[in-house]
């Protein structure tokens, strides 16, 4: 495919994604119950996450060299990433196994839009975006408490790292659901994902050392999601850290695309 065609296809995909989001926004405005329920649940998860760290810091001064405020920043970043991915593609990808097993995927394959992006963004949930407000409050408050004065470069690096982690989270969510092309039940994969996400967000980056670092930052890179933007902001990521994170995200994105294509090749639609 030529570069022009690629650019055209990407622009069309982006336009379709924005249209899906607008449609969902209109629907959310009509159903205020579901709109607020997502926000309330997310806030609850965020409060529990904060409570876990609060209890730990009642008993110790630091975790692997991270003091209380660095961990508050980490929690804020986790909440920001969580709120963004919950609003953008979380609910769409949750429905992916059902779409595959019920044959609903047929509807997406027949439309002139990337079926994976269509599935992912069709359930855009604006209620979760509100979670960004307490998240940003935590990020700003912890930065102030640490006496850290970030420049435009640190802020840009932080935002870039958050965007990169949203892409990585998308890849990981898709990969965890692709077995639906071959398996009837994905309960164990869901449990695995839930455990990995939960602890990756609860374990500060400083806790991973040696082999664990390789496992949770490269092989199952859930450990990068909240820790890497934190490191990028405070300048501890370095060039090597950025190269490794970019490499991991590129590899997982390529793997996701390849696995999705192979899954589609094995897919038996309702009409086949």
């Amino acid at each position, binding site marked *: 495919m030529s570069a022009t065609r690629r650019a055209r296809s990407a622009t069309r995909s982006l336009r379709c994604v924005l249209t899906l989001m607008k449609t969902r926004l209109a629907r959310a405005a009509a159903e205020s*119950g*579901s709109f607020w*329920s*997502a926000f*309330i*649940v997310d806030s*609850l*998860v965020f409060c*529990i996450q904060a*409570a*876990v760290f609060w*209890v*730990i810091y*009642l*008993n*110790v001064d630091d*975790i*692997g060299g991270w003091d209380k405020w660095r961990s508050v920043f980490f929690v804020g970043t986790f909440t920001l990433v969580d709120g963004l991915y919950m609003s953008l593609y979380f609910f769409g990808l949750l429905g992916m196994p059902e779409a595959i097993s019920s044959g609903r995927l047929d509807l997406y394959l027949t439309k002139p839009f990337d079926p994976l992006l269509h599935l992912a963004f069709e359930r855009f949930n604006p209620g979760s975006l509100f979670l960004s407000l307490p998240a940003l409050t935590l990020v700003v408050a912890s930065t102030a408490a640490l006496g850290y004065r970030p420049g435009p470069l640190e802020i840009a690096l932080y935002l870039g790292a958050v965007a990169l982690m949203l892409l990585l989270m998308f890849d990981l969510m898709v990969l965890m659901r692709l077995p639906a092309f071959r398996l009837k*039940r994905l*309960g*164990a*994969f869901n*449990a*695995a994902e*839930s*455990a*990995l996400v*939960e*602890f990756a967000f*609860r*374990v*500060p980056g*400083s*806790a*991973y*050392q040696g082999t*664990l670092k390789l496992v949770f930052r490269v092989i199952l890179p859930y450990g990068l999601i909240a820790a890497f933007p934190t490191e990028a902001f405070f300048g501890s990521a370095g060039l090597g850290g950025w190269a490794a994170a970019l490499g991991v995200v590129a590899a997982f994105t390529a793997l996701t695309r390849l696995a999705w294509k192979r899954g589609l090749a094995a897919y038996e639609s309702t009409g086949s």
Partner: protein
Amino acid sequence: MRAANAYFAVARTALSDRLAWRADVFLGAGMGAARVGLALVLWTAVFAGRESIGGMGLGTMASYYLIAVFAYQLDQSSAVSSELAGEIRSGRFGKYLARPVDPLAWFLAAACGRSLVQAAAALGAALALGLACILVDPAYLAPASALGLAAALPVLALGLLCLALVNYMTGILAFAFQDIGAFQIGKNCVVEFLSGALLPLALLPSGAREALELTPFPALASLPAELILGRGLEGYGRELALLALWALGLWACARALYASLSGRYEEMGS
């Protein structure tokens, strides 16, 4: 007696159904092991250079998670509750009304059958993980108390019953609400934290800990873990009595909620 036989059959069917999805059961237990492992990663970093935290050494902390995480996994009523809510919303709840069965007893029997399978898998996974820890370092885990183990079983059973009753009540909220999924997720997060499966309740400030001791949630993870590790036997009788009272109270609430909500049920042909 015939009624008891009917619910025994429900439990047996739920058990067989769960056994039919063996990979799910074993991988679920494997994930419990992963949770313990990841908790150890966090606590190893927290313990760096420290002898004890909240009166617990790293070995006691590891043993605590080994018991608490797997004990919390025993509950299967949450999944049965989601299915019940689905049946209510899709109009398949009529099967309970057409048969001479009590929906609450059916729910508890099904949850019990499933939990038994999960208990066998969780026990196997906990023993395998414990053995692996001992092989790495024989002094790593804190010793278990046989008396504490015997004391923990009724506590755990009553805790699971209380949670099942709470889950039944959240499930039948589907009579009144279109979607209770978000509510279920929120409830699961809160209960997991309050049970002590996320972190030992002994680390909480004393006021919060004392308040939590008045609820049935620590019986799902924290209390059994403490008992098995030979701690907390002094107030055992009081805790057991409190749990029994909670179970009775929740049972009455579940009955009252069903009576007030079930009249709203409608399905095709009704």
